[in-house]
């Protein structure tokens, strides 16, 4: 059965991404500006999404903060994908004993809850900023993908064109980047999309717990961390709105990822 392309999800995702990165064009308020006269204001004409407890405009913060959330998502995924391809292909390509060591090591790290690992690493790295957070999340989320990459490499390395390239004297990295990685892309694409989603969720979790970005650095996660107070002051908008944006983005990414996985599986079963 053909899975329908998730047009709707893609549309929402594009609106959010374009809105966040192009927010300079349409925002009228400074997201950092504390309008002390209008704290905890419910959504109205001037403040479309209301204001938080220090009078910052949530509408501006959402778009502005989204940039950092998305940036962390993308950077972390870039790093984790790179690590996954490196470790996975090395294991797949290496002799059995090295493969064994690499995979057992990967499984060892995989067996530690990644949130715990993230917290440890962030604590060791010191004060969090957007880049350190991206690195820490990236460092703790490559393991699953590395295992997939390894399986793919095991298949690919015995294909004729790889053998041919090898016979012509191609080194490991040449083979990897020119011949193996292009073959891998379709099968890990959905994992990449899922990783973006996971990284964004991890950022929000860490910031919410006060271990991620400081409150001054606006992201959806740090906005949610401020909202702890909002439960007590009944300022529902300062919880609901960043929450909706985060959940919406993650939902769309999941839909997209699932679609990719299904279409790839289909192709594999057609082999």
């Amino acid at each position: 059965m053909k899975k329908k392309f998730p047009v709707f999800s893609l549309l929402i995702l594009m609106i959010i991404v374009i809105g966040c990165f192009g927010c300079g064009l349409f925002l009228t308020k400074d997201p950092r500006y504390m309008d002390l006269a209008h704290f905890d204001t419910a959504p109205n004409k001037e403040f479309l999404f209301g204001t938080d407890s220090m009078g910052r405009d949530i509408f501006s913060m959402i778009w502005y903060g989204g940039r950092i959330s998305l940036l962390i998502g993308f950077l972390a995924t870039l790093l984790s994908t790179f690590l996954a391809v490196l470790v996975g292909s090395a294991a797949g390509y290496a002799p059995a004993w090295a493969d064994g060591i690499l995979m057992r090591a990967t499984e060892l790290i995989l067996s530690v809850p990644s949130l715990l690992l993230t917290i440890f690493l962030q604590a060791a790295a010191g004060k969090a900023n957007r880049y350190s957070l991206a690195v820490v999340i990236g460092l703790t989320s490559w393991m699953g993908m590395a295992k997939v990459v390894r399986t793919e490499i095991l298949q690919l390395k015995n294909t004729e064109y790889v053998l041919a390239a090898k016979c012509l004297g191609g080194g490991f990295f040449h083979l990897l980047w020119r011949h193996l990685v292009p073959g891998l892309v379709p099968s890990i694409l959905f994992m990449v999309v899922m990783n973006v989603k996971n990284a964004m969720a991890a950022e929000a979790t860490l910031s919410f717990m006060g271990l991620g970005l400081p409150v001054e650095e606006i992201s959806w996660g740090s906005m949610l961390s401020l909202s702890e107070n909002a439960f007590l002051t009944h300022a529902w908008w300062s919880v609901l709105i960043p929450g909706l944006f985060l959940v919406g983005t993650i939902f769309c990414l999941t839909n997209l990822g699932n679609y990719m996985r299904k279409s790839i599986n289909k192709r594999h079963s057609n082999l």
Partner: protein
Amino acid sequence: MIKSAKNKNKTIGLFCTAVILILSACGTTEIGEKEKTSSEQAKREQTAADQAEPVTLVYGSGDYTRINPAMDEHGEINILLFNGLTAHNGENEVVPGLAKSWEFDDASNTYTFYLEEGVKWHDGEPFTAADVKFTIEAIMDPENGSENAPNYEDVEEITVVDEQTVSFRLSAPNVAFLDYMTMAVLPEHLLAGENMQESDFFRNPVGTGPYKLESWDAGQAIVLAKNEDYFMGAPHIDRVIFKIVTDDNAKTLQMEAGELDLALLTPKDAASFANREGFSCYDMRTSDYRGILFNFHNDFWKKNRDIIPAVCYAIDRQAIIDAVLLGQGMPAYGPLQQNIYNNEEVEHYDYNPQKAREILEGAGCVEGEDGIYTRNGERLSFVISVGAGDQVRVDMAHAAAQQIREIGIDCTVEIPTRIDWNGQMAYLIGWGSPFDADDHTYKVFGTDKGANYSGYSNALVDQYLMQARESADPQVRAEAYNRFQEELAKDPAYAFICYIDANYVAKSSIRGISPDTVMGHHGVGIFWNIADWTMEE
């Protein structure tokens, strides 16, 4: 609080000063015995017998690493465990404590205290005059580095006349002396020869107070049980638990969940308990102010001390009070606004961004392209540090920093894990004592005094504070404090922001809290009459 002896900002004047009306009339004055009616005593025993279940009060407290009233300025648990020779009543006047009466000899500047008889330490040993001498001498010993030392620097000699009598000879009159004798007395028999900063005693304190330490689970809870032999009569509530909850939000949630019976909350959090069944809100006035401390040890302020008035004019105090404190506070212009010696006439530095910019330009600063002034090629830029955990201060610092940026000084906020008192540029400080005007002024603004964390030094300020301390004549004192406040306004040590009300939320079952007492720094002081509180289950 009390993370260490140097943790100043969380300062509290439990053992400090007061408005000593008594002294103003003093020659050789006898102060009468406090009343202790035996019928009242009997009634208490009766109620205690009726209640089979122990009555427990759980209070949401800051953290303690030690309980050391002699070395640390603050610590509200002290008043439950210890007594001073004198005490403060609900009007913050001096009343008898461990001393049932005292007299003052003008000619020799000598106070003689007559102690209560039959008072016992929690471990059963008798309390004597030697304990008093030991405690104050330990505080005065410079090797011990006590935050309270400036309060006793004019004590020349302490004499133990007999077991129940002790006298203090001062080098010069000190009007606030009876206030300072509220200092908790420590037991000599447990502390003689011990290190006054490190001793284990400060984790197993033994006092004479209404409650004794039952157990201490570090970082979790300090459990106090009532002292049946308390010399002023056993308290009604059987146990008081100081549950350590350092985070403001967590405190509110635990109050909400019923895990706490009493807590000091932020105004925003306290507002959610107003008019709710089962809770009573106590919005108490305090002498507790907040301001931006400028650290004059830092090079930036050595070079730019003259732009401090611009910073003061930049702060819109009412806006901060309305947004951060929900209006529960008042704008501050000086350290004595809740005191009888307050001088209204000084410069208030009311919000005036125009004037702030004029001052900057008058000082030779040039506005750069980014709207920030530069001086001799250097951008005007400083960082306000704030202690973590106190949401009100953090919010205040952010709001003030934004207002300072608006007049063209680049000001940011950081929340360091450890406060670097000598290195930092500025700090969101709090002080303020409800007692004598000498308290939290002499040692806070005097050159090189124990609690002067800004490195502030002004010869005139020193001189006026000394004059005020040494005179018992209210007119001389008023004059000296007027001049002190004028000078401090001219050459500000802090950019004062506001006085904050203390918003206590209690279960309605707690009776006996006095709502009109002016609280001290950090809203401390609510426990002054804990022995009289009751709780119905």
